[in-house]
Structures are given as C-alpha cells and as structure tokens.
C-alpha cells in the first residue's frame, strides 16, 4: 500500500505503471484494477476557474488516508492500493487525486475505489481555494456526495 502527498504535477497513468512494477508479488494474482482520477476543471458552480490552491494538514492527512484504506481492506478483499493526492497550486486539466485498487475480483476493486474516494472527500483534511478568472479567490464550501445520482 502506498499513500503519497505531492506538491508538483504528476501523471496518474505513469504513477500506476511504476507502482505496479514495484509490487511483483501480486503478478498473476490480480484480475481487477479499478482506478479513479480526479482532475481540475476550468469551471465550478457556474464560474470559470483559472487555478486553485490546495491546503492540507501535514501528518493528519496521511494518517486519515491510511485509516481510510485500512477500513476498506476490512470490508473488501483487495491486494494492493495506491493513493496520490496533490497539494499546493493546481491549474485546470491537472490531476488532483489518484486512487488505484488491485484485487482478484472486480466487485471488490470497484467498491473499494469508490469507498476510498467518498471517505477521502469527507474525511481527509484537504481544502480547496479557487482562483476565478477575475483573480477573486473563494474557498470551496463543501464536497458533494458522490453516491447520489
């Protein structure tokens, strides 16, 4: 399992490739990989957004993410997990978060990646401040529930 907070641009697909190479013990054992990537959009709540600053609580963030992944592992059979989250200045089209789950069967992989994303969005201490096109800044108020349709 790996949890990584980074303050520079990352390529989620390269992160997955590299991490998968580092876990040869799951080779031939995993039949399912479920991945979620959250990417910055250039709009939110009806406004054009030109950038964002992502603040976090160093130490607590890692601790809470660790806990979330462990809670998932108690509910589903998974082989490995990778969570990468960006902090600092972020611009549209840049990835913010990556969750990748390896498991034998697809049900576990799907359920776990979604569970981790929902928990991360409600429990991991990250805060987004958006910079609008007119340079006005605003804190994002609340994350929405991703299970609702």
């Amino acid at each position: 399992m790996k949890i990584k907070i980074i303050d520079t641009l990352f390529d989620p697909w390269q992160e997955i490739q590299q991490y998968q190479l580092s876990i040869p013990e799951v080779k031939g054992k995993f039949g399912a990989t479920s991945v979620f990537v959250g990417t910055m959009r250039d709009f939110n709540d009806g406004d054009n957004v030109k950038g964002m600053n992502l603040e976090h609580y160093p130490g607590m963030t890692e601790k809470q993410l660790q806990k979330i992944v462990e809670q998932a592992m108690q509910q589903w059979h998974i082989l490995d997990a990778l969570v990468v989250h960006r902090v600092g200045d972020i611009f549209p089209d840049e990835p913010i978060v990556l969750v990748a789950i390896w498991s034998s069967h697809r049900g576990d992989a799907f359920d776990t990646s979604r569970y981790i994303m929902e928990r991360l969005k409600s429990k991991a201490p990250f805060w987004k401040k958006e910079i609008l096109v007119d340079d006005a800044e605003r804190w994002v108020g609340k994350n929405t529930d991703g299970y609702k349709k």
Partner: protein
Amino acid sequence: MSIKVRYFASLKELVGRSEDQLPFVGNLTVADVLKQANKNKVIPNNILAAVNMEYVAFETVVKDGDEVAFFPPVTGG
C-alpha cells in the same frame, strides 16, 4: 505545560493566525479550547476538530501536550 492549537483554511484566515500556544490548566474540553483562544470571534458552527490528528467531538477533554486543530469541512479529492 501547554496545548498547541492549530487553524486551517478559511478558519485560519478568519482568526488571522495559524497557531496558538495555550497554557495547560487542566479539565478543558476541545470546545473550551476554541472559546478560550478566540474570545471575541464568532466561529462558524460547521467547524471540525481533531486532537493529535484524529477527529474528536467538541466534548473531548484535552490533555497536556495535545495538538488541537480546528478547520472547516474538508474539500479535497
């Protein structure tokens, strides 16, 4: 003998600082800590609290040396 108080994001901007050091006087709850450190401020009621990087209820009693943190609802991901 002290308690470290930390503020994040919009709450940090509201209180105008990121940290306080409070003397430990015993028998304080998390709610007491917030009140004592911000006597003349109206704090939004959706604020969350953590002690030593774990979420806690505001009734939790604080121990000497604890790091108590306050912050708005999280918006990562």
